[in-house]
């Protein structure tokens, strides 16, 4: 699918306005120097030159949502019997995520395996995912802490995007990746972009070469079981960890959640909200027992999940796309890439990484 499109820079807002007539459009907006995906408005201060503080996972996997509502009612003659009506809250709109960085777009593929393509799909996720078009945006530069190339990706990875957009002089080259993406560029503002292909590719290559690989050895990091299960390693590597949830909440692939009920006498709601494996409450049992009682246990699970358990289940694919947010925004600069590197098995040969982060 290489019918390249081109969008003139000066037509960007008009193009988005057009999109917004059909869909809900989220764009990266800078406010007080904080970039986050917000509903597009004509006066939005769209920020493309640096990745958003928080990935657009918020659009498909919102910070909280109502899964179900329970409505209580009684018959007058039988006040002691409460009838419950359960309603599913599924009202998903056509949505566009504009200018998701490739790592952020790719994050959704990590979700997909769990939420969409599993034997028990999650209808809330699937509902939003299927109605969402993701316009990826090739990174114009690298950011502190990025290491996408080390986990099998590139700053112009198409996986997860429906269209990949690359900035060239005067505008953006739009490369459709999926049928959904193709449909989006059927717009009067989109011209033929084939002549910009070379420039786009060069730019992509340039940026790719700037990404640093934090791992000592090339290829897919192989974690040594022995080191992984050595508690003293974690204790020393993670002493500085504050056990907050910044790393997980900002991670495009972290998908853990909590389910809680809230009651309001006549009705109640079942909520799903983000949760983090770094929080002690996450695994705390009613008895007071906690299978992951310290931050070391919790971080170990986080690293384990991303680099061992998830790959074990999904054909070796890592649950990390190297966006670097967890490193960049960690209040104490805990560096997961460094931890993984230290855990690497120095004796065995690394396997080659495939582009989806899996093994060859």
């Amino acid at each position, binding site marked *: 699918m290489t019918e390249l499109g081109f969008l003139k820079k000066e037509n960007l807002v008009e193009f988005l306005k057009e999109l917004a007539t059909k869909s809900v459009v989220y764009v990266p907006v800078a406010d007080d120097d904080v970039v986050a995906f917000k509903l597009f408005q004509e006066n939005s201060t769209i920020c493309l030159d640096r990745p958003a503080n928080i990935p657009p996972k918020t659009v498909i996997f919102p910070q909280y949502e109502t899964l179900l509502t329970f409505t209580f009612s009684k018959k007058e003659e039988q006040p002691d019997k409460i009838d419950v009506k359960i309603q599913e809250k599924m009202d998903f709109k056509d949505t566009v995520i504009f200018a998701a960085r490739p790592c952020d777009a790719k994050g959704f593929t990590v979700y997909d395996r769990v939420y969409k393509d599993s034997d028990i799909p999650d209808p809330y996720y699937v509902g939003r995912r299927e109605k969402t078009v993701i316009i990826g945006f090739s990174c114009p530069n690298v950011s502190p802490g990025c290491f996408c190339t080390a986990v099998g990706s590139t700053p112009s990875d198409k996986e997860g995007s429906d269209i990949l957009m690359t900035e060239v002089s005067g505008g953006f080259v739009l490369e459709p990746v999926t049928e959904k993406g193709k449909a989006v560029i059927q717009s009067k503002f989109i011209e033929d972009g084939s002549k910009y292909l070379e420039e786009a590719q060069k730019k992509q290559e340039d940026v790719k070469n700037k990404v640093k690989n934090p791992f000592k050895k090339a290829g897919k990091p192989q974690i040594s079981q022995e080191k992984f299960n050595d508690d003293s390693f974690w204790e020393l590597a993670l002493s500085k960890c504050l056990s907050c949830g910044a790393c997980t909440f900002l991670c495009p692939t972290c998908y853990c959640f909590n389910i809680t*009920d809230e009651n309001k006498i006549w009705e109640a709601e079942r909520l799903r909200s983000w*949760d983090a494996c770094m929080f002690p409450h996450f695994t705390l049992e009613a008895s007071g027992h906690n299978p992951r009682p310290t931050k070391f246990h919790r971080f170990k699970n986080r690293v384990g999940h991303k680099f061992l358990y998830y790959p074990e289940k999904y054909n070796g694919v890592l649950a990390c796309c190297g966006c670097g947010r967890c490193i960049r925004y960690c209040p104490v600069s805990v560096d997961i890439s460094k931890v993984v590197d230290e855990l690497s098995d120095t004796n065995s040969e690394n396997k080659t990484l495939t582009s989806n982060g899996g093994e060859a």
Partner: protein
Amino acid sequence: MKNPYLPELATITKIIEETPNIKSFQVVFNDHEKMKTFKFEPGQVGQLSVFGVGESTFVINSPPTRMEYLQFSVMKVGEVTTALHELHEGDQIGVRAPLGNWFPYEEMKGKNILFIGGGIGLAPLRTLILFMLDNRKDYEDITIIYGARTPPDLCYKDDLKEWESRPDVNLILTVDNEYPGWDKRTGFVPTVLNEVAPKPDNTIAITCGPPIMIKFVLQNLVKLNFKDDQIITTLEKRMKCGIGICGRCNIGSKYVCKDGPVFSLAQLKDLPPDL
């Protein structure tokens, strides 16, 4: 697409006070059709909803061979279980079931079965015991070692009475300490297991109880020469989604809610030691 988070409405038809802090709830789906077609395997669990309070996971401890109702036993420890204890017969709850895996009862056919339970840990064993009793001919000797802190803390007192009277069940009861009116064994379950010293030949041992009990039972079974694949236990973790997504009940790559709760000791040994 089926919504896996959507509970089925059910009515509590009977509440049995098992012990001072454990109640058993017998529930039937409001949808009679659903009740008729409902299928599950012994050892599978369900999520019970108290609307507005939350969900909690319990094993279905009635056997699939007796489908007049589903029974769940609830020990009062946290918010949801406390709310469940406040419910009355006739009240509505939500049920998401069946979830998780089950006891490999097919593979146990023709074998001696040793059940070792403590406290409310008898619940998952009960479903299998009743299932096997309903298919008695498929299994050889059935031995049940069950203990609780005190006699009033023993669950399923009617069942115990019945099993005790059956010639084809060897029931060994114990309580931690001497207790007025108690003339059976005293001592902790792992110790009693050593006293009874069952033979591992052609035997599968299934154990469930408080973590500390399980720990010593497993040790003692190994000492009694049971092999890792002859020992089965069920695990309990904090669960929310029940479908292997939400991320809290995993041990390594295994999700207790989906891949469990039933594990053989051999399987457990392959997992990271994060119990």
